[in-house]
């Protein structure tokens, strides 16, 4: 009986391998997930398309959660995520063996529009940010701004890695975060545009997207009272509190084209792409 069962599972897994080989050779390699991780991955895909003649589709539906759920559901070959796969997700997609491939590090910045920056708000404390998120302060005057201006908070939509890092830092876990109703924004591009074009605006955004021209990254006041800016040095030493890992996700060890992509991103050329888009490559991280 036992041998029989083993035989069965062996033949099943052989069949499965064959099947996945057929799918892999016929269909393009599908990658989906975080817009943050997308930047270096899309460029790597571009290079691999030209040099290795790989057929790759990179998409950013639903951000990190989209990447996790679609990988868990077997719709894509590689996920992109700017947050670790939670135990809840592992439980939800128990048939998928999520493997996290660490390709770099990023920070979440709180960014404000130009008028807020110019009215003198350059730093915020954790307590101030909590008040802001819970709607207890609604005017920049109460947060050190020189003129009265209503606060327009654009919340990153749930499921975005950026949002999860933010509430993780503020409340310890997404589940402990209070329920709030703010206008929601999705990808990084949208967030930057909306904050840049709205008076009194603030939102969470990947630090590398804060260009210092239309949107400005605030420094966070550490426990010793010193402001900490989201600079590369502060992220590398974890002095800046809201940093996060960037992952490629695969179901088990990646193989075939998926392995080519993962290996490329971990190679010096791939790591240069990570750095080029404003993230920290692995070698810059202080363990």
């Amino acid at each position, binding site marked *: 009986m036992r041998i029989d069962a083993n035989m069965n599972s062996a033949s099943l897994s052989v069949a499965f391998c064959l099947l996945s080989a057929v799918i892999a050779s016929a269909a393009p390699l599908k990658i989906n997930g975080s817009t943050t991780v997308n930047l270096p991955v899309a460029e790597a895909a571009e290079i691999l398309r030209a040099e290795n003649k790989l057929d790759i589709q990179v998409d950013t*539906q*639903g*951000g990190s*959660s*989209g990447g996790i*759920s*679609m990988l*868990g*559901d077997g719709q894509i070959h590689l996920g992109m995520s700017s947050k670790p796969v939670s135990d809840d997700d592992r439980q*939800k*997609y128990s048939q998928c063996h999520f493997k996290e491939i660490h390709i770099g590090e990023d920070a979440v910045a709180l960014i404000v529009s130009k008028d807020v920056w110019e009215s003198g708000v350059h730093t915020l404390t954790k307590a101030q940010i909590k008040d802001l998120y819970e709607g207890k302060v609604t005017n920049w005057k109460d947060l050190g701004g020189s003129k009265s201006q*209503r606060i*327009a908070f*654009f919340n990153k*939509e*749930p*499921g*975005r890695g950026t949002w999860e890092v933010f509430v993780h830092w503020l409340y310890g876990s*997404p*589940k402990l975060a209070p*329920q709030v*109703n*703010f*206008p*929601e*924004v*999705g990808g990084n591009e949208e967030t930057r*545009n*909306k904050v840049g*074009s*709205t008076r*009194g*605006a603030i939102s969470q955004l990947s630090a590398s997207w804060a260009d210092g021209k239309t949107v400005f990254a605030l420094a966070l006041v550490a426990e010793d009272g010193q402001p900490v800016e989201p600079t590369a040095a502060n992220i590398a030493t974890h002095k800046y509190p809201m940093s996060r890992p960037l992952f490629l996700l695969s179901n088990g060890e990646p193989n075939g084209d998926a392995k080519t992509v993962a290996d490329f991103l971990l190679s010096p050329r791939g790591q240069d792409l990570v750095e080029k888009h404003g993230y920290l490559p692995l070698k810059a991280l202080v363990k």
Partner: protein
Amino acid sequence: MTRAFSWLFSSVAFLSVLLLAGVFFRASLPVWQQEGAAYVTGHQWFYRQHQFGALSLIYGSIVVSLIALLLAGPLGLGTALFVAEYLPRRLRLAVKLPIELLAGIPSVVYGLLGILLLRDWVYDVFERFEPLSGDTLLTAGILLAIMLLPTVVSLCEDAFRSIPSAQRRAARALGLTRAETIWCVCLPQAWQGITSAFLLALGRALGETVAVFLVVGRQDNNLPTNWLSPSPWLQAGQTLTSKLGSSETNIAYGDPLHWSAIMGLGVLLLLLTGGITLLGTLRRNRNA
């Protein structure tokens, strides 16, 4: 033979609609079981706490569509009247064609135009009412109005054109002026066609997704304290369609209750658009 086939095909069409509604309703059963009527009347939509009250979404959808109809209705009716009653035959096509071409533009293009032009315009023009940003229910309504215009113009014009010319000539022979002819003969005769045009446009507005999604602001649970007050129109909101288009659909996948709540929104949308479109089509057919 032809008769048999037409029966066959219409029943296939009818059954597929029923099947679709059935599949959606079945998929949404868990949320009806948990929330009951509160699913439609509840004020709170917090999926992490498994609270699913869709009232603010229904409110958003209806407000956005009504704003669109209020703007596109009179404008479209006026245009149709001008095209059908005043314009010489040769110029008619020159005016009608560009308007109907508007209907062929993909809605995502409208949405991008909305982001580019309309958001900032609304933000600046209504500045003294202090909107928090340019993403408001009103912005979405105005954008939808532009999208509805071809539907309203085209259907209203058809309604006017279906009135026999003999009636106009009779009215003129009785000494009525052109304006009087329009008021006393054309408008009453075409009334059923006009209202059906409005209903069909409303059905389209309720179902529109991408353009609305891009400019509505996507703020949950935004219900006014005073239902008739227009001041919440200048706040961000959420519609049934913008919710369905949001990242929550991805998150809901795998959580049976949350997923059924999302499917339930599909049922509500199907009922709203289906009901109104049906009403509009029935009126139109009775007229013809």
